[in-house]
């Protein structure tokens, strides 16, 4: 699905990613963990096409295409979805309106006709039920006056509506109560299929217990310093990130 090779990136001259290598095959769920400030959101933003980060080295291929050469909206239409760590509010624009525009943008990109209004509403109702939102909330302004947890739920709702090939969820599990966590993990599991891949950026093992990943990677100071199976989450939970510096030394040598 996606192959990241020796990715270096900086913001305002400050290096943040320092040679990230990551391979995510079709149909797999990978988790990225790592301490605050290690570059997880930066990596996610770069994959989605945020311009303020400057890629200085490396390459990313997505479904066989050079991802870094595509515009953000093109990437989205090709099936890249980013669940934001901090979803922004867009006052006055209803969620459903945005989603319909987004779906139609995809359809236009693929040369398909616009979605029928009735079909759209049916689909929306179905997904709203999946994530336990109300229609009233779905019609409200995008994230307008949503609580932190509601915003995350809304990201999952959008993901289910847009059915991406590659979903990158940046701490979508943070700040959730137990029920919401279940909604989020159910949503992710629902999406799992041989033609879709998921990247979960998370700090918590509990999400990974609900959605068991194929691989877990640890990002530390802008590099993947350790990778392993789901059991790595237990090791990290027990030991913290304290031993990583030795790993980093091992990784760079």
């Amino acid at each position: 699905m996606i192959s990241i090779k020796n990715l270096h990136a900086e913001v305002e001259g400050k290096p943040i990613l320092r040679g990230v290598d990551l391979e995510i095959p079709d149909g797999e769920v990978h988790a990225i963990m790592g301490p605050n400030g290690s570059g997880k959101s930066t990596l996610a933003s770069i994959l989605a096409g945020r311009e303020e980060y400057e890629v200085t080295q490396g390459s990313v291929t997505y479904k066989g295409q050079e991802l870094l050469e595509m515009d953000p909206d093109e990437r989205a239409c090709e099936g890249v979805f980013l669940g934001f760590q901090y979803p922004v509010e867009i006052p006055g624009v209803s969620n459903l309106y945005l989603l319909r525009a987004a779906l139609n943008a995809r359809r236009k990109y693929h040369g398909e006709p616009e979605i029928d209004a009735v079909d759209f509403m049916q689909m929306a109702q179905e997904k709203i039920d999946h994530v336990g939102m109300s229609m009233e909330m779905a019609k409200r302004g995008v994230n307008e006056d949503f609580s932190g947890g509601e915003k995350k739920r809304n990201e999952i709702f959008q993901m289910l509506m847009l059915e991406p090939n590659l979903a990158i969820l940046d701490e979508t599990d943070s700040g959730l109560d137990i029920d919401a966590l279940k909604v989020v993990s159910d949503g992710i599991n629902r999406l799992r299929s041989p033609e879709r891949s998921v990247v979960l950026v998370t700090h918590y093992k509990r999400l990974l217990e609900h959605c068991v990943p194929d691989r877990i990677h640890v990002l530390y100071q802008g590099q993947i310093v350790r990778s392993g199976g789901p059991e790595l989450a237990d090791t990290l939970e027990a030991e913290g990130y304290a031993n990583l510096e030795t790993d980093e030394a091992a990784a760079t040598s």
Partner: protein
Amino acid sequence: MAAHEQDVEQLVAEREYEAGFVTDLESDTVAPGLDEDVIRFISSKKEEPQWMLDWRLEAFRQWKQMKMPKWPHLHYPPIDFQKISYYSAPKSAADKPKSLDEVDPKLLETYEKLGIPLREQEMLAGVEGAQYPTSGSNVAVDAVFDSVSVATTFKDKLADAGVIFCSISEAIREYPELVKKHLGTVVPRGDNFFAGLNSAVFTDGSFVYIPKGVRCPMELSTYFRINAENTGQFERTLIVAEEGSHVSYLEGCTAPQRDENQLHAAVVELVAEDDAEIKYSTVQNWYPGDENGKGGIYNFVTKRGDCRGDRSKISWTQVETGSAITWKYPSCVLNGDNSVGEFYSVAVTRGMQQADTGTKMIHVGKNTKSTIIAKGISAARGEQAYRGLVKILPSATNARNFTQCDSLLIGDKCGAHTFPYVESKNSTAKLEHEATTSKIGEDQMFYCLQRGLSEEDAVSLIVNGFCKDVFKELPMEFAVEAQKLLNVTLENAVG
């Protein structure tokens, strides 16, 4: 700026007129210049009674003593009022384009994007023989072409309800008592420079009269259009809503592509008696000029509503996207106790457009209430100022006002300025004011792009969201039109 001046000079020079006043009785356009004879000419062309002519002449005398306001946040070359022609009838059929094929394709493209039906496109472009549809719509139209109303429809249905909806010239002839009673009572002749000029030389406009207890059976609509070259447009509109009546009036302009600066100085007067309600909605799209500001229309408008009766209500809703220069402050004078004034506005400036707009809410009666929601959008080198005055007189016990003005900037060469003035002479007044200025956030843009929207769609989505509180006040059909207009207006605003 100097370029404007030159153009005006040149265009005026090209008009082959003799210095001084010449009335060519064969022609229906009067030569540029303004004096009492021109006013007499206009008045006689319109077969007006003596009192009307006297009223105009008095306005002219007052106007000569007045000066152009200097305070707006606008820059434009001095206007030579002797170089403007003050009367022109519609072009004769021979001058009109024979079909849409002869109309500027760029203009048609705009109509297309706005989704204006073909029949209406022909109308707006002034194609020979084109007429408004006479049935199948629930909007009554009074088209003001240049200076003379040429098409009025729906009269019968309205007449059944006792509603009068006609051109002001016709009203002066047919309903002189009504006009005499109300004309100039809301905007007096000496009110301001442009109102004074309008009072002297107004050529046409609309008149609406809703009798006691009548709910007007349909939305009333006027399409304004400027047609003849270099002719100042001076519309005069008067709407009178008697006790317990209700009317919604739509004013829409779709401007043709033009080449020279044009002065437009309209006056709109609204009178609401006890329990009456007037809703006045405007979607204004005068030609703004090219990206250097050349050729746009100068729009200096005085709009005022008098909530004369108790519990009366007047709402102004406007979407302003056009004109090179806009100077406009629809206002409410809340005379009646418990009367309500509302102002909802979206103003867009882009290119070199300048707008100085806002509202005045004058609280005179007890328990009067006003709401102001002004949304300003500036893109490219657009400049705009919001100027609002809320005045609470000593008599206005328990007056309330809520004001919210928000500015949205697209790009960093544009500007927005807010000048809220509050004068309260009664300590029981409750006033709330909120103001924000924001740039279209990078985060908002990226969020939309990440969901797959193009940059243009993302801007239009965010902008429409920003304007929602105003759009929802517009009648349904108009709201859709306004939204489309905004999208077309802001095309290429980013990137």
